[in-house]
C-alpha cells in the first residue's frame, strides 16, 4: 500500500484500530499492569493528533471523505467524512478519552476486571468516533447502536449490584428503543432523499422538507436523538446510569455519548432543520428538559446524581439552541458544547475522586476537604465557576451567547428568555453546591479518611478545568480552528465568528447578572428545598420513570402469558394453532381479494372429469379415511398403501410417468419402513374424548377446505409467466435430453437437486444415529 492509499483510509483505520485494540485491551492490561491506562491512552492521543492534523485541511474548507464498499446492494458502505462538526466532536472524544483512560487506571486500580473495563471503554471510544465520522446513514446507525451496547456494558460493569444491572437495562431499553425509531427514520430518510450518504442528503434538504414523509422522518429521528440525549420525557435513565464507575459517567454520560443525539440533530440540521415543526419540537423539548433537569438537580444530595441532572439541563440547552437555529444560536451551541465538555468532564472526575477518597458521594456528609485535598479542591472550584458561567471563563462566553440567541429569537421570545434565565440560575445554584459543600466549612468525618488523590486521578481535572479559563481569556485559540468550521457545517454556510469576554453593558449581561443573583438565592434556600423531598418523590411517582416501570412489568407479564399459552408442550395444540392461524389469515385474504360469492361458485365453472379419474380420487380419499378409522395398525398401513398407489396412478394419468414410478417405489419402501417401525410401537389406543375428536375434526376440515380453495384459486390465477417454456425449448438443444423432467433435475436446476440429495444424506445419517444411540441402561 502506498502512502496515498494509506491516507485515503485514514479515518477508517482510525475507527477500526480502536475496535481491534478493544479486543486486545485485557491482554495489554495483563502485561502492562498499572501502566495499562497510560499505554491504552495512546490510542485516543494518536487519534486526537491525527484528527487535529487532518483538521487543518478541513479548516481550509476541504472536507475529507473516504468509502469502503460493504454491502452495496443495501446502500451500505463504510464511508467516513471529516468536516468541522465531526472534527469538533472527534477532538472532544479523543481528547477527553485520553484523560478518562488514565483516570480509569487510577480509579479502578486493583479491580479484578479492569482489563475488561478497558475493553468496554475502548469499544465505546471507537464506536463514538465512528458515529461522528460516519457519512453513511446505516453505518452511523451501526456505530450508534455500538455506543448503546458499550454503555450498557459499562453501566452494568459492577454486575453484582442489582441496581447497576437494572440501570444498565433501563439505559439499554430506552436508548435501544429510541435506536429502533431512529433506524426507521434513517431508512425513510434514505428512501426519500435517494441517498444513503449524509453529505449527499444535505443537498436534498428542500426536497426532503417538502416531502409527505417529512413528518414521520422527523418524529422518528427526534425520538432516537431525544432518548440518547436524555431529553424530557426520556431523561430518567441518565441519573440511574450514575451506577456506572465514575470514569464512565465522566466520559459517556456527560461529555460524549449523551451528546450523540445532539450531534445527530446538528448533523441533520441542514437536511431536516428550519421547519416550524423542527423549531417547535426542539425548543419545546429542549426548554422542558432545561427546567426539569435544573429543578431536579437541586433536589439531589448525591453529587453524581446532581451533576447528572445538570447535564440533562445542559443537553436541553443544546437542543433548544439547535431548535432556534439562528446564526447566533448555532454559535452559542458550539461554544456551549465545548465549554460544557470541559467543565463537566472535570467535575465528574472530581466527584469520582471524592467518592474514591472519602467513601461517600453524599454532599451532606462531606465538608472542609479543601484542606486535605488542595489540588482537587482548586480544580473543582474552577470547574464549578465554569458551570456557573461567571467570570473570565469560556463558559461565560457561551452563556452570553445563549442569552443573545434567545433575546433575538423570532418566536415566543419571552418564554425562551425566561427559560434561559431560570436554567442559568439553576446552574449557578448547582455550581455553588458542588463548590462549597464538600470543600468549605468544618472538616467532616467520612467513611474513609480523606487525603489527596494520586496524580492519575487529578490529572484530568487539572487539564480540563484550567482549559476553560485559558479559552475564556484567549478564545481565539479555538474560534478559527475549531468552532467556525463546526458552525459552518451545521448552518451549511460560513459565518464570521468573533468571541470575546466583554460585550459591553447589554441585556445579555443583565440576564447573566440576574441568573447569578437568582442562583445564589436558590443556593441559600437549598436546605429548605431539599425538605420537600418527600413531596418530590410522590410527584415523580407519576413521572416517566414510573411509565417505564409499568411498561416493563406489562411486557414481562404479556411475554410469560403468551409463552404459557402458545408454548404449552402439547403437540396437537401447536398443530391446532398453526392450522387455525393459517386458515384465518389465508382465508381472510382470499375472501377480501376474491370475494365470497366468487369463491363459492368457482367449483362449478370447470367440470371436465372422466369417470375413472373421479373414481380414483374418491378411492384415495376413502382409503385415507379408512386409515383414520382403522382399529389396527396393519389395517391403517394397508389403507395408507392404497393412498400412495392411488396418487401414483393420478401422476400416470396426467403425464408424469417419472413421478408415478418414483411414487410406487417410495410407497413400497414406506410401507416396509412402517411395518418395521410399528413393530416396536404400541397398538392404537383411543386417548381423546369425544369432544376433543369433534373439535379436532372441525379444525381439520377447516384446514382442508382452505387447501381446496387454494388449489381452485391458483388454477385461475397467473401471477407471472411460467418459466417452464424455457425448459421445454432448451431441453434438447442445451441439455441434450428428451426427458425434460430429468434434464431439469440434473442440469437446469442441478444445484437444487444437489441440495436435496444432501438433505437426503443427512436424514439417512440422522436415522442411523437415532437407531444406534442407546440410552443408558439399554442393551444392544
Amino acid at each position: 500500500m502506498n502512502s496515498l492509499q494509506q491516507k485515503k483510509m485514514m479515518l477508517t483505520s482510525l475507527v477500526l484500530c480502536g475496535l481491534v485494540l478493544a479486543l486486545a485491551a485485557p491482554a495489554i492490561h495483563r502485561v502492562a499492569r498499572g501502566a495499562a491506562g497510560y499505554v491504552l491512552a495512546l490510542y485516543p492521543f494518536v487519534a486526537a493528533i491525527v484528527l487535529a492534523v487532518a483538521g487543518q485541511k478541513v479548516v481550509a474548507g476541504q472536507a475529507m471523505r473516504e468509502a469502503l464498499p460493504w454491502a452495496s446492494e443495501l446502500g451500505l458502505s463504510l464511508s467516513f467524512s471529516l468536516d468541522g462538526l465531526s472534527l469538533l466532536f472527534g477532538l472532544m472524544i479523543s481528547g477527553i478519552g485520553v484523560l478518562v483512560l488514565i483516570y480509569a487506571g487510577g480509579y479502578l486500580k486493583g479491580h479484578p476486571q479492569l482489563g475488561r473495563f478497558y475493553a468496554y471503554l475502548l469499544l465505546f471510544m471507537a464506536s463514538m468516533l465512528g458515529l461522528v465520522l460516519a457519512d453513511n446513514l446505516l453505518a452511523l446507525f451501526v456505530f450508534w447502536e455500538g455506543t448503546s451496547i458499550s454503555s450498557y456494558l459499562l453501566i452494568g460493569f459492577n454486575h453484582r449490584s442489582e441496581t447497576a444491572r437494572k440501570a444498565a437495562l433501563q439505559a439499554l431499553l430506552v436508548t435501544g428503543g429510541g435506536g429502533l425509531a431512529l433506524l426507521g427514520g434513517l431508512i425513510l430518510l434514505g428512501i426519500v432523499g435517494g441517498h444513503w450518504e449524509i453529505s449527499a442528503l444535505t443537498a436534498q434538504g428542500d426536497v426532503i422538507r417538502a416531502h409527505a414523509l417529512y413528518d414521520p422522518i422527523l418524529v422518528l429521528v427526534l425520538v432516537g436523538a431525544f432518548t440518547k440525549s436524555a431529553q424530557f420525557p426520556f431523561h430518567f435513565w441518565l441519573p440511574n446510569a450514575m451506577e456506572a464507575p465514575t470514569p464512565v459517567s465522566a466520559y459517556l454520560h456527560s461529555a460524549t455519548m449523551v451528546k450523540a443525539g445532539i450531534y445527530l440533530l446538528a448533523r441533520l440540521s441542514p437536511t431536516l432543520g428550519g421547519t416550524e415543526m423542527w423549531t417547535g419540537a426542539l425548543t419545546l423539548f429542549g426548554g422542558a428538559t432545561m427546567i426539569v433537569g435544573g429543578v431536579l438537580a437541586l433536589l439531589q444530595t448525591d453529587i453524581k446524581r446532581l451533576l447528572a441532572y445538570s447535564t440533562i439541563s445542559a443537553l436541553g440547552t443544546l437542543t433548544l439552541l439547535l431548535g432556534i437555529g439562528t446564526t447566533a444560536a448555532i454559535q452559542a451551541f458550539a461554544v456551549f458544547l465545548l465549554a460544557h465538555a470541559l467543565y463537566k468532564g472535570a467535575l465528574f472526575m472530581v466527584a469520582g475522586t471524592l467518592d474514591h477518597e472519602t467513601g461517600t458521594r453524599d454532599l451532606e456528609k462531606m465538608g472542609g476537604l479543601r484542606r486535605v485535598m488542595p489540588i482537587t479542591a482548586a480544580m473543582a472550584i474552577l470547574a464549578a465557576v465554569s458551570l456557573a458561567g461567571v467570570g473570565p471563563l469560556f463558559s461565560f462566553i457561551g452563556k452570553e451567547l445563549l442569552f443573545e440567541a434567545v433575546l433575538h429569537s423570532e418566536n415566543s421570545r419571552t418564554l425562551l428568555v425566561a427559560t434561559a434565565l431560570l436554567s442559568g440560575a439553576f446552574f449557578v445554584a448547582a455550581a455553588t453546591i458542588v463548590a462549597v459543600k464538600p470543600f468549605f466549612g468544618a472538616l467532616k468525618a467520612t467513611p474513609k479518611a480523606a487525603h489527596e488523590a494520586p496524580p492519575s486521578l487529578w490529572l484530568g481535572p487539572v487539564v480540563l478545568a484550567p482549559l476553560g479559563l485559558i479559552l475564556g481569556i484567549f478564545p481565539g485559540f479555538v474560534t478559527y480552528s475549531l468552532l467556525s468550521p463546526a458552525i459552518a457545517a451545521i448552518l451549511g454556510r460560513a459565518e464570521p465568528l468573533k468571541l470575546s469576554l466583554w460585550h459591553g453593558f447589554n441585556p445579555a449581561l443583565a440576564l447573566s447578572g440576574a441568573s447569578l443573583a437568582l442562583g445564589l438565592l436558590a443556593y441559600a434556600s437549598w436546605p429548605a428545598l431539599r425538605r420537600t423531598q418527600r413531596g418530590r418523590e410522590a410527584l415523580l411517582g407519576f413521572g416517566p420513570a414510573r411509565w417505564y416501570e409499568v411498561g416493563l412489568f406489562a411486557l414481562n407479564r404479556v411475554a410469560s402469558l403468551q409463552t404459557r399459552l402458545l408454548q404449552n408442550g402439547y403437540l396437537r395444540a401447536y398443530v391446532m394453532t398453526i392450522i387455525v392461524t393459517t386458515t384465518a389469515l389465508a382465508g381472510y385474504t382470499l375472501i377480501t381479494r376474491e370475494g365470497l360469492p366468487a369463491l363459492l361458485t368457482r367449483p362449478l365453472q370447470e367440470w371436465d372429469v372422466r369417470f375413472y379419474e373421479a373414481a380414483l380420487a374418491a378411492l384415495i380419499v376413502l382409503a385415507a379415511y379408512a386409515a383414520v378409522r382403522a382399529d389396527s395398525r396393519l389395517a391403517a398401513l394397508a389403507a395408507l398403501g392404497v393412498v400412495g398407489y392411488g396418487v401414483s396412478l393420478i401422476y400416470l394419468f396426467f403425464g408424469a410417468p417419472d413421478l408415478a414410478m418414483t411414487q410406487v417405489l417410495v410407497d413400497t419402501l414406506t410401507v416396509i419402513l412402517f411395518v418395521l417401525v410399528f413393530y416396536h410401537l404400541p397398538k392404537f389406543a383411543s386417548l381423546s374424548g369425544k369432544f376433543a375428536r369433534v373439535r379436532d375434526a372441525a379444525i381439520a376440515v377447516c384446514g382442508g377446505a382452505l387447501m381446496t380453495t387454494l388449489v381452485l384459486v391458483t388454477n385461475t390465477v397467473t401471477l407471472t409467466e411460467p418459466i417452464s417454456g424455457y425448459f421445454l425449448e432448451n431441453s434438447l438443444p442445451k441439455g441434450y435430453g428428451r426427458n425434460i423432467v430429468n434434464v431439469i433435475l440434473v442440469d437446469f436446476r442441478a444445484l437444487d437437486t444437489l441440495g436435496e440429495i444432501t438433505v437426503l444424506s443427512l436424514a439417512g445419517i440422522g436415522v442411523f444415529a437415532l437407531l444406534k444411540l442407546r440410552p443408558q441402561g439399554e442393551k444392544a
Partner: protein
Amino acid sequence: MTSLILGTATRLLMPLLLLFSIFLLLRGHNEPGGGFAGGLVAAAAFVLYSIAADVSTTRRALRFEPQNFIGVGLLCAIISGLPALLFDKPYLSSWWGQIKVSGFIDIKLGTPFFFDVGVYLVVLGVALKILLPLEEQAELQSEDARDFSVEEQGSSGRNLEPS
C-alpha cells in the same frame, strides 16, 4: 421367516432388478427413469433380498456399507459440477463430450450423467441406511414378529417393547 418360494424367486429377480435399475438410470435422460427412480429400484431390490434371506447376507452382497454409497454419490454429484468452473461458467453448468466411432458408437456423454449417477448412489445408500438397521432390529426379535400380524382388535393393553 424364510420362505423357499420367496428365496428362490428373489435369487432370480435380484440381478434382473439391479439390471433394470441401471437401465432406468442410463435411459433417464431421454425417457422415464433417472437417478431417483433407478436408485429406488436398486434399494427395493436389496430390501427384498434382505427379507428373503437376511440382513447380514444382504450386507455381504452389497460389498460396501450403505454410507459409502452416500458419500461416493455426493462426491460424484459435487465433482460433476467442477468442469464448468474451468470454462468460467456457473458451478454445475453442464458440459458435454462426444464419443464417436463411425457406424458403431455414437454416445454423447455429459457431466449431468455423472450427476445422475451421484443421485442414484445417494438414494440407494440412504434408503438402505435407513431400512437395513431397522430390519436387523426386527430380526433380533423375530419371535415376537409373528404376533404382529395377528393383532387383536381394539384391545387397550399396550405392549411395551421387550428389549
